[in-house]
């Protein structure tokens, strides 16, 4: 093929050498990526494919809407609470159930906790290894590492002896040959730009973050009753509160537990502000000229808005995370979004392994159809059970292609921060401007892979401080004597209308998430979820628009054409989550089941 230009303005050329990366490692679920490289090893065509079918719709049909959240918790090993929250919001919206102030505040604490924990884990345990060379850390001088660490942060764990100990531990681990989480890294690739000391500092904080992240989720245990699958409730939260009550299993949340939450919040703020953010800036200093991976960033982006301060009020003024869409890079023109409008959010499947009666049109999720249809295009190389090369001219992914008013959109922390910045909201604009000024970069530098990664770090700090804000708000309300956490007025199905439709939306750590529910005769009639990775990882649509992953990969040069480090770096910057694949594997490590075989 010669070069074609997509309606959303990207040039594609698939004449060069094809490179297949499958699976993309360090993500939830199964993602495959194929690119064409030109003679200079620059990516000129990109194809991203979700190779795993997920049909929540099948599981939920016929079930009690009040139970839907418990099934949604099982979709995925990462986004557990997020799907549960979207689900209870959808059912409450359908049945016009309002929630008490305390329930709203506690949900905001739960959500902010999830953001802080998820962003931290994503940065250190999934994404940092795209920037940090673990093996190089073994060559670092612990004393110089200490000097570096002390120059960027007051964090106390920074003595030469401390870094020497970690280095010894790491060496022992590497020498054992069981690299575990560090297996299959592209160590030594020329695209790694950090000096050994920065690598050692980052690996050290990888270990500290691992220890720390477990503290954060104790908040979910307090308010959700248990971990790893916290309890949620249509109409509020399942936790009763009794400030003076005893501390016992099954007893209401008491002052001891609320104080524990408060102390965890303080430590979360310290860790993120003194370790995560300084590390991010230090790493960015070495990579600031690697300005690839923008794609739809700064061009087409969207947020559904979240964190309602007062309960049951979704007006713009009441939301701490702004709502809106930006099209064609017009940052001064923020468009309103309406998730009920059938002409706004639509999912297309002409390039997805599903069947619609008419695949030229998109369907609003309330009218959504999930009918799998695994068929390969004529230019596929290989067979259904062993695909060597996908045919992107035909169906090539189990991800549908959602569009907003026909546009492919990017969602996630960078989109949220861009909206906040465009609206001139200080708590988004000021930290962005500070980072850009410190690094000596223009605003355009934000719309890159590195910018996406930086926005997530700034957002982790934002979320940690909002945990404090909402905890203070909760304590104030409780001390004023309001202990109510649930509204059970419409708990009994007899109080419901014969038929109802609702939407539950959440700004998940990775971006805009929506659940659309249709309730009929007290049971779920239909359910559709459009998840952030569906937006970002979407395949082409009937008009030929490419999705955010594909757009972001274009024009990136690979330093070593046999190692897709830069591809991983950009895809990981979106924090993709393709929901749980089956995890059973044969003892020799070969996969027993490929989820792409229907």
């Amino acid at each position, binding site marked *: 093929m010669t070069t074609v230009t997509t309606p959303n303005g990207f040039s594609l050329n698939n004449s060069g050498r094809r490179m297949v990366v499958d*699976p*993309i*490692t*360090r*993500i*939830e*679920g199964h993602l495959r990526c194929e690119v064409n490289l030109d003679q200079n090893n620059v990516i000129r065509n990109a194809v991203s494919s979700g190779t795993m*079918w*997920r*049909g929540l719709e*099948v*599981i939920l049909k*016929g*079930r*009690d809407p009040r*139970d839907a959240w*418990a*099934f949604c*918790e*099982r*979709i*995925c*090993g*990462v986004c*557990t609470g997020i799907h549960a929250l979207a689900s209870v919001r959808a059912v409450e919206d359908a049945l016009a159930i309002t929630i008490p102030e305390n329930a709203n505040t506690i949900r905001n604490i739960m959500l902010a906790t999830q953001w802080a924990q998820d962003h931290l*884990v994503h940065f250190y*345990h*999934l994404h940092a290894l795209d920037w940090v060379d673990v093996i190089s850390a073994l060559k670092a001088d612990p004393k110089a590492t200490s000097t570096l660490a002390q120059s960027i942060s007051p964090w106390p764990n920074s003595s030469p002896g401390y870094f020497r100990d970690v280095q010894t*531990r790491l060496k022992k*681990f590497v020498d054992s040959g*069981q690299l*575990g*989480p560090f297996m299959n890294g592209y160590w030594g690739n020329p695209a790694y730009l950090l000096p050994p000391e920065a690598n050692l500092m980052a690996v050290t904080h990888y*270990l500290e973050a*691992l*220890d720390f*992240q*477990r503290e954060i*989720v104790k908040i979910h245990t307090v308010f959700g009753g248990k*971990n*790893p*699958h916290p*309890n949620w409730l249509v109409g509020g939260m399942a936790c009763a509160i009794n400030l003076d009550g005893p501390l016992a299993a099954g007893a209401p949340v008491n002052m001891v537990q609320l104080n524990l939450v408060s102390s965890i919040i303080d430590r979360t703020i310290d860790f993120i502000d003194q370790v995560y953010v300084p590390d991010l800036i230090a790493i960015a200093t070495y990579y600031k000229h690697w300005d690839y991976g923008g794609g739809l960033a700064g061009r087409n982006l969207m947020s559904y808005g979240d964190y309602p301060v007062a309960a049951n009020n979704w007006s713009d003024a009441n939301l701490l995370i702004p709502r809106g869409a930006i099209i064609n890079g017009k940052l001064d023109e923020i468009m309103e979004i309406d998730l009920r409008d059938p002409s706004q959010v639509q999912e297309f499947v002409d390039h997805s392994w599903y069947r619609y009666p008419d695949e030229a049109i998109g369907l609003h999720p309330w009218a959504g159809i999930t009918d799998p249809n695994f068929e390969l295009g004529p230019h596929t190389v290989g067979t259904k059970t062993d695909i060597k090369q996908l045919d992107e001219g035909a169906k090539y992914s189990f991800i549908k292609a959602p569009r907003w008013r026909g546009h492919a959109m990017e969602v996630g922390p960078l989109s949220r921060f861009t909206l906040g910045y465009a609206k001139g909201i200080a708590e988004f604009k000021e930290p962005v401007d500070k980072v850009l000024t410190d690094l000596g970069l223009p605003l355009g530098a934000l719309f890159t892979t590195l910018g996406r990664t930086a926005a997530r770090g700034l957002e982790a700090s934002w979320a940690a401080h909002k945990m404090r804000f909402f905890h203070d708000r909760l304590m104030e309300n409780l001390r004023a004597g309001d202990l109510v956490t649930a509204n059970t007025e419409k708990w009994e199905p007899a109080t419901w209308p014969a038929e109802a439709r609702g939407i539950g939306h959440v700004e998940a750590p990775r971006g805009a998430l929506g659940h659309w529910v249709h309730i009929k005769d007290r049971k779920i009639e239909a359910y559709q979820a459009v998840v952030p990775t569906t937006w970002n990882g979407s395949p082409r649509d009937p008009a030929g628009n490419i999705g955010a992953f594909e757009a972001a990969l274009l024009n990136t040069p690979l330093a070593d054409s046999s190692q897709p480090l830069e591809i991983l770096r950009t895809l990981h910057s979106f924090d993709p989550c393709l929901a*749980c*694949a*089956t*995890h*059973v*594997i*044969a*003892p*020799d*490590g*070969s*996969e*027993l*089941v490929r*989820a792409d*075989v*229907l």
Partner: protein
Amino acid sequence: MTSDRAIVVLGIGNILWADEGFGVRAVEALHEAYAFPPEVTLIDGGTQGLALLPLIEAADLLVVFDAVDYGLEPGVLHLIDDDDVPRYLTAKKMSLHQTSFQDVLGLATLSGRLPGRMHLIGVQPLDLDDYGASLTAPVRARLEAAVAHAVAFLARFGIIASPRVADDPAEPLGPASVGRESYEAVA
């Protein structure tokens, strides 16, 4: 082991994918049939990854129920001990943030807090592809044997499981709606 030892019995897998749910269903069945002394914690781990790390690191003795491919006849129970457990559980996979329990064990190794004893009670699955289905007949038929084995294994360490009586049933491990009976009623 001392009296303040911690024992964790963990069921992992996805209940929405047929025999993938074996681990969760087994720990549920164990919990429904027996009560344990306080040092024993039964956990429905689902497909959680990192969230399981602190629970595992807290254990001196870890018993895991899971569906594992041994290349045997469907429903066959196979037992694995200690260092062989991570080798058998989910090799290769992608990493931490996902369902890969092996990586969680790798991280526990890195942190120096891997449980001193580990025991995997695995079942050979028949079907992992049937989304929305429950356990297949050959796998379901071994739930009782898996539970009995766990009880016998724990007894070797002096852990006495007390059979529950009909008029004092267990509080379910998770919401009743995703329990096996309720799940299968609609599935």
